């Protein structure tokens, strides 16, 4: 069974932002979602968690396993959020609370969702920090986000997302705010986690280079619509849509010819 099935999703935030989007995530696979800013890719991932503003009009279907997300009330949504679907945000220096220790942020939802006591939650947190390779996990629990480097912070954010062993991980530009040198480490970690935990990952990015490294399948989104969807190999070897070719030619060091601009 698919981990996440999005069917004919439409999101209207005063203007249509996502139109007729359908996407399926399989366990252990990384689904890339590429597109320029404003193409609706972030809105799509927020819709999956029911995190869009109250004024947003959302139609279609988002199923996590058997659970339909659209129309769910907050209480029921909170049993999906963090527990079955988790999210990693773009900038870990903004997505971690500056006044709360890493330990607190790593355990509060664990204690809520998994009903662990303080001690068990802490042991669990230590394991997670070790898994995402944060050095000196014991000390890290008592530290605050500003005491970590950007890459370490994103590792912490990933550990928080994985804490309740979710089926689906939404990663929204998880490497964009990071130095080029640490991006690769984070991407590798996501790939490894997807493989070992049979995690279905939706990797949202504007950078096809990121997807070329780790995605299994890639969907290209433009102005709220998926214009092309294929396996990684197909997409890079034989891009069908003019916009995909344009994105590919925009990558640095691209072997593709300069494509005509799509307007």
């Amino acid at each position, binding site marked *: 069974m698919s981990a996440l099935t999005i069917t004919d999703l439409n999101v209207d935030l005063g203007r249509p932002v996502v139109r007729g989007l359908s996407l399926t995530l399989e366990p252990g696979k990384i689904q890339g979602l590429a597109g320029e800013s404003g193409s609706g890719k972030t809105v799509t991932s927020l819709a999956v*968690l029911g*995190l869009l503003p109250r004024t947003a009009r959302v139609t279609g279907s988002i199923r996590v396993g058997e659970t339909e997300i659209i129309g769910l009330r907050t209480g029921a949504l*909170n*049993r*999906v*959020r*963090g*527990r079955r679907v*988790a*999210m990693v*945000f*773009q*900038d870990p220096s*903004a*997505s*971690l*609370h*500056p*006044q*709360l220790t890493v330990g*607190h942020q790593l355990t*509060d*939802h664990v204690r*809520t969702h998994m009903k662990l006591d303080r001690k068990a939650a802490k042991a669990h947190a230590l394991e997670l920090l070790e898994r995402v*390779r*944060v*050095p*000196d996990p014991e000390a*890290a629990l008592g*530290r*605050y986000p*500003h*005491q*970590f*480097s*950007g*890459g*370490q912070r994103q590792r912490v*954010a990933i550990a*928080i997302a994985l804490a309740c062993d979710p089926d689906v991980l939404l990663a929204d530009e998880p*490497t964009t705010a990071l130095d*080029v*040198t*640490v*991006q*690769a*480490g984070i*991407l590798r970690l996501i790939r490894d986690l997807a493989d070992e935990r049979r995690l279905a990952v939706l990797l949202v990015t504007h950078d096809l*280079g*990121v997807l*070329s*490294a780790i995605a299994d399948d890639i969907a290209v989104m433009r102005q709220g619509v998926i214009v092309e969807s294929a396996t*990684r190999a197909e997409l*890079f*070897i034989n891009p069908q849509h003019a916009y995909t070719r344009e994105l*590919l030619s925009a990558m*640095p*060091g*691209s072997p*593709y010819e300069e494509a005509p601009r799509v307007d």
Partner: protein
Amino acid sequence: MTLPRTQKTSRAPGERPAGDPPAGRSRPRRTSPLLGYLLRRLGTSVLLLLGVTIVTFALTNLVPGNPVAAALGEGAASNPETVAAYVKRYGLDQPLPVQYLTYLGNLLQGDLGRSLATGRPVTTDLATAIPATLEIAVLTIIVSLLVATVLGTVAAYRRGMVTDQVVRVVSLVGLSLPTFWLALVSFNFFFLQLRVVPGSGRLTATLTPPPTVTGLFTVDFLLNGDGVGFVDALAHLTLPVFVLSLFTVGLLTRFIRTSVLEVLGSDYVRAARAKGLSPMRIVFDYVLRGASLPILTIVGIAFGALLSGTVLVESVFAWPGLGTYAYNAARNLDLPGIMGVGLVVGFIYLGLNFIVDLLYGLLDPRVRLA
């Protein structure tokens, strides 16, 4: 054909396991960063205190006419012996810098001179006036902060909806009503007409004040286990605190609403929602904590503003605090009294700023550990 690889991804295979630079602090940890921070703040406060004493000292020398006559009053000033004794005691025959040092020396011994209005040492007068004012001010801040946090947070969560509009109008009204007018109106309405609360003084005349521990009647009554006295003291606080709170609630509500709105739009609150935490958990753990620093700043400012606001309110409710004392001192041209109040208010402001700085350090690890 090979897959196109950007620079960043082509490094993946050879990357170190934890490919990020080492975490956190490279410097060895010093004894206590918070202590250092506090000592620095304390040093600044001491310098500022000296500044305050220079200003009050200058005041004595700026008074038109003879400072001795101003300090002693007309009667005593006509007696040459008294004048000579006064001049000697305060070193007024010495050059200004020496006079200042003498003044400072007296100050350190708690000698602020004798009040012309009451005939008692200013220090003795202030020892009863300060706790009286602090009792109103502290209670007002506590009540206002509680009310404003609820109103501001609810308004921010319901931004643009009816609740928000109502809260904004109410807080604007609280800010706009002149405090002295509100004091008179509520005195007239709640005390003279409805007779639901006492309207003047700290205590009903038939009760004796509690033995002084803190000087705050409510606290001292409680420490003494006197329930009747506590209720009476609290009843007397009701009107002044109500009047002062309306302004403070208005001020704090607007700021808290803005701060909470800002935090609600932050990534870390979105991340907390994405974790599936309950809305209450998010409000207390994430939202209010995030908004606590700007709230703390405005509470400090509001507390300072309260001290000046109490002058008029205390006069209306015959509250024997700093405001009433300052008012009487000014009316009687009681220079030692005025200087004493000026000094105390300066001290309180500085003390307040120090406490705010201390709380910053406690609330924000970036301040504490930087």
